[in-house]
């Protein structure tokens, strides 16, 4: 179990390129996050939990999909930690597993309407499907 946690943490750090030890725990990421109220684990908690190897709860959390990927936290972090990249790395870890796709191409036609920008569909596929 311990080994598995370490392996997951290593993988997240590698895919994200983030070093959570750079965090000085100022909370500016969570102060800036527009999806804060929707998220169970907030950006600063993501950074701290990955640092501690507390990955399991993050994998199961809805927060992965509530993050807007607006990158406000990345832009404003004074320590250059890039929390959104960590969220993305954890999300990738989930959707890369067999059967974890949250959006299949054949689901898309029924979601389409004139209002929906095409860019949103592309980015949704990028975010929710492997």
């Amino acid at each position, binding site marked *: 179990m311990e080994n598995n946690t370490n392996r997951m943490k290593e993988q997240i750090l590698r895919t994200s390129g983030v070093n959570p030890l750079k965090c*000085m725990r*100022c909370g500016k990421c*969570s*102060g800036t996050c527009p999806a*804060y*109220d929707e998220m169970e684990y*907030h950006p600063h908690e993501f950074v701290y939990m990955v640092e501690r190897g507390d990955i399991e709860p993050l994998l199961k959390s809805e927060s992965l999909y509530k993050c807007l990927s607006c990158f*406000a936290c990345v832009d404003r*972090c004074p320590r*250059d930690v890039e929390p959104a990249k960590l969220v993305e790395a954890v999300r990738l870890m989930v959707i890369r597993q067999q059967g974890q796709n949250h959006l299949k191409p054949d689901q898309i036609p029924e979601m389409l309407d004139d209002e929906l920008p095409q860019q949103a569909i592309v980015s949704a596929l990028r975010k929710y499907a492997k």
Partner: protein
Amino acid sequence: MQRIGVFVCHCGTNIAGTVDVKAVAEALRYEPGVVISTEYQYMCSQAGQDMIHEAIRENNLTGIVVCSCSPRMHEATFRKTAQSAGLNPYMVEIANIREQCSWVHKDMEIGTEKAIILGRAAIAKVNLNAPLTPGETPVTKRALVIGGGIAGIQTALDIADAGFPVDIVETKPTIGGKMAQLDKTFPTLDCAACILTPKMVEAAQHENIRILSYSEVQDIKGFVGNFTVQIKKKARYVKEDICTGCGLCTEKCPQKKVPNEFNLEMDNRRAIYIPFAQAVPKVATIDPNYCTMLKTGKCGVCAKVCTAKAIDYTQKDEIMEEKYGAIVAATGFNPISMKPFDEYAYSQSKDVITSLEFERLMNAAGPTGGKLLRPSDGKHPHTIVFVQCVGSRCSAHASKGKEYCSKICCMYTAKHAMLTRDKYPDTDVYVFYIDVRTPGKNFDEFYRRAVEEYGVHYVKGMVGKVSPEGDKLMVQASDLLADKQLHIEADLVVLAAAIEPDMSARPLATMLTASMDTNDFFTEAHPKLRPVESPTAGVFLSGACQGPKDIPETVSQAGAAAAKVIGLLAKDKLKGNPCVAGSDEWMCNGCSSCERVCPYGAITYVTKEFRMPDRTTALRRVAQVNEAVCQGCGACTVACPSGAMDLKGFASSQIMAEVDAICK
């Protein structure tokens, strides 16, 4: 042939832990010229020095090599030891087997091998060393202080009190610096002006102090004890010695729309102005960028109303040249620009201000007469949010901000919050902090009083976003302890901006050849043991130009810098550095390469008559080094194409011998 003694130091376990010192001493015993080689636990101790002393006497040594720490640490110590035993101090060489060897290696075998090689190189050099005698230079008994803030004023006062004349050069029309702009000072809340202005007056009236206000240092030449400095006295278009400072001109000047930098441009002043009521010198200055008379030749109101006839529109910048023995840099700091921090809407809203602007709003002499009013509509703010660490403690890779902690913000923010609650109990005051850092006498007690007695809301977390909506400022922030995102409707947001060295510091450092760190703070000669001296001899540091500092710390450092200056000026003569360049006139081809590369202007060319081998005489142009000016940098020895130029104590032959010894 030299008779060389080798002394290997253990430095406790600092060296002996990674280097087999006995093996080093044994290996070096058989190097050419070595007659004795030994080791000891602490060479720098009295017992160690006595051992060297005895060895020199008993073995008639002509040179010694000490394998120990960096020469920056103890070269002077061992040179003194050698001298006391009758040896020329320049016959001592240090092999640095601590910083360059034991501290950087972990493996005993490798460490020992390298220590032997370094020792061998030093022995090779001593074999070619010759006794050197330093020349003496006189000391100009006068100091220059650059910057007239509290640091510069205090340094100048302390030097002047010891009986030495001091000049203060200040680029603004008045001395006083940042402290003159402050309202109250932590942690005792005494008013800044009440404690600063008496010192300004004392400086102005001191017989040993001359204040050169509205002036800038333009050029610095020379060396410790003998600096020659060019100072530009900017034209203020007012005769300083005649103006009485009555202020009539500043009331009558029709040009009223000049942004007032003393109030951080929150109000306007006239084109002719005295920065503030207690300015020293209390003399008016005309701002040439705004004066109608100077720009178009049509006005002249100030000249008409001046009863002392002090106005002179024809004044020109004046360059004066002065000699000094010591120079103190006291150039101070500025808050960094808040413009790159878009998330705090500093450029969008007038009601987002910096702490220094808040200081002016609270000051009785400020733009609001000391009433806390919003800059946008002049209304009294009811909810105020203070944001700490704006631009401080940022990663070196972040797009903006400084890497260091600005040190003063925690305390002045506590002060601002406390004073606000004291004067206006109907205001809600929030302080967003990452850490509250209060290491100072009575500092933490002060911060706790803000929380416990004045009811300031301290929230652990950072503000993420400030957005102006109507006449409110929507503040979105995180409260880390409650794990909540807060949304506060604020009337005023105050940013504790990071501080940075004044812009004039870098060009000054270049003129002084004083070193700086990556943040443009002056570097001290030693961070712990020589904190008020620059590594450049004769240059001293006072105040925030060396690093962020509050007033108590600045004043202590200013006094310390003064003590060092007094110590220097009290000497009649200074021993120079004998390791200077010298030119072999027979080899010099007169090409001027050395003259062009010399950063100190120490080389001149003369035309001399030479008796040639065939008994004829010839006139030849050859280089001559002024040994008092030469700093021994060695640039000329590299530039010289004919090999005529050499550095005493570091001759090319000696360096090559070291290289050969290392590569053996």
